[in-house]
């Protein structure tokens, strides 16, 4: 996964519970015992991490497959 998300969260997306706009934050991504750090949009209040569809089906799926084939 790239160091930065391929598509940052749109500015109009806010946390419904905390009523706060999302900010980029460091996130630990793990799969099959491997983990690494990435920057993703998160709620600064509750820590809700947002994954856009392009990321989930793109780079994230690629990394998942690469780890499954490792």
């Amino acid at each position: 996964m790239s160091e930065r998300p391929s598509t940052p969260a749109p500015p109009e997306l806010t946390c419904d519970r905390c009523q706060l706009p999302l900010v980029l934050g460091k996130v630990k991504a793990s799969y099959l015992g491997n983990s690494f750090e990435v920057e993703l949009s998160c709620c600064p209040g509750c820590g809700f991490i947002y994954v856009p569809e392009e990321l989930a089906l793109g780079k994230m799926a690629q990394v998942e497959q690469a780890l499954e084939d490792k």
Partner: protein
Amino acid sequence: MDGQQVKLWESRCIEEFPPACSAACPVHLDVRGLAELLRKGDLRAAHAHACRFIPFPGIVGHLCDHPCQSACRRSESGDAIRIHELERTIATAGFNAPPFRRGRAMEKKRVAVLGAGLSGMTAAADLIVKGHEVVVFEANAQLLGRLRQNPNLPASILEADLARFENTGIEFRYEQTANAATLADEFDAVYVGTGPAGQSDIDIDPLTYTTRHPKIFAGGSRRYGSHYSLITSLSDGRYAALSIERMLQGASLIANRDSQGSQASRLYVNVAVHAPLPAVAPADPAQGYSPAEAQAEAARCFPCHCLECVQVCPYLEHYGGYPKRYIREIYNNETIVMGARKSNRMINSCTLCGLCAEVCPEQLGMGEVCLSARQGMVAKNHMPVSHHDFALRDLAFSRSKAFALARHQPGHNESALLFFPGCQLSASSPDHVARFYQHLCAKVDGGVGLMLGCCGAPAHWAARDDLFGETRADFRAEWERLGKPPVITACSSCYRMFTDHQPDVPTESVWTLLERIGLPDAGGVPSRLTIHDPCTTRHESAIHASVRRIAHQRGATIVELEGAERTTCCGFGGLAQLANREVADKIVDRRIGQNESDHLTYCAMCRDNFARRGKRAVHILDLLYPDGDAAARADPGFSARQENRGRLKRGLLRDLWGEDVTEPADDIELAMSAEVQADLEKKLILLDDIRQTVRHAETSGEKLIDQKTGHFVAQHRPVAMTYWVEYSLEGGRHVVHRAYSHRMQLEIAP
């Protein structure tokens, strides 16, 4: 995977055997490759290709006795390819053969060649390329003396071939005769190729060209007398040089020489599929083929390949190879120590349908190979989770209380038979299952028990032997509790699983039973249907016959494709559809494209896959219970499949067993466009996953809101998948705008 077994499988794929022409050529000239280049009109490349095999392309092009042509398989459908004429066209096209280049030997040795005929000069060429010092002794004043007297060989052609020897470092000693035994004292090896006039008392080994003297090798026209063959004489020089090289290196002279010399090939070629074609006649026979004529003649070459399996299987075609190569890749995939296992998806994309073994001249089945590889992957914990996870969760659903059921017929304490409709028919046509069960109950004395559940096929296909064992144990416990009645299966995969893996369970297909007990009452509707036999019934001729007779009784005129034993998979077998949608779609698309008429099948998954890809198709039960335009019925999709199973069980409990079962109320009512629904289906996201995610967001408040659209974005990770749903609330309904999922787990970094 067992290495010995892998070698056995590999040995049964014959695609890599040479075509008959190359096998018949003593030096195995790649005639098929030449024809392919000529077919493209690339004479220059064809010439260069010939020069790689033949040291004297000009001479051979004019004088070869072409044993290749007699072996040509084209002769079984028209005339043999005029290979010699093609060689001549190449030889006279005016291209210069590349000169030989002296190689670098690790340990340079000195070799004497006696006689500068074709065999001696070939040996000299091969040994100089290997980097040795070569001295040629010729009794006459010229090289290739006898060939110079041949009126059919222009001198310019001979000289052009000899030009390849210039500046190679070979030392030619003209007008010198020498004694081989004496030379053997001075040189590390000696080749005697002195022609028919030479010493005749040499005893030559036909495989290694060795003589009684360990350093002296011999061959060439001396071996043939009146049966002289130019190309065989040339090949003697080549194989003697190989022996000399091996002797100089201290290697075995006899190892790996099985393919040496002219021989028959094991390559299977289905000649019958090629229409007969006569040879192209050159406009001027004395001049031979023009380039255009040669191109037309080369285009008659099939070319010879086996590929019987690849031609019938979109999966085998998809990966661009053939079984022998795949088997090697699959074995490497398992034994690789570092790096990615690149063949995982290929291994999981096979439908295990068995068609390849059916058409293979050696009965090699890739399904057996792939299943064995899957077992190895599971055993070593290398099976990619994502490939089979969805199918195994679906299996878990079928084993759960939501669907599983095992009962005697209402009002009975024992069962003469046990009906096992299977999970996919129940998922596709729950109403048919319920009606059909009642028909069985009405027609069979002694009670017909009912068992809803899974036969374990998905676990077997995923090589999850543990889970397959558990599923079989579930079945056995209930079957024994019901008194071990004979099992009647409606699904051909269930039939396969029971007969192959629980042979002590008496199993019969419902279609053969139905013929004995009689069909449900309903009028036949005339129809014309192409029958598709499920791949899991490939050799079940009694079932094939029963289904055809049943369809006939219902007014159907049956159109056959290649016959039941050559049937294909619908793409679902082996869980291929879940591991590789692209390949599975190619498989089903090829099948449904075979003709225009509606398809008739007796596997619910086949019918629904045909429908999913736009083919009008009916299940045999649609003929038993006619109701409108059944062939237009859409694929229910994965969500409805699970819901239908649950609904079937609840309906049966209510209607047949009189239990008070209520339908679960949906707290989350979903709505979405057809596009979104199709997208979810492709992404293997169930409506139940969506409901859980929305429910989680609504109860916990954990969701995002898009201030511009007012849409909510929710996420939920019930077990190993995170589901994302974008939805809005409209009139009390949750309108789904998109959903997706990932497996990676995320948390705020500490």
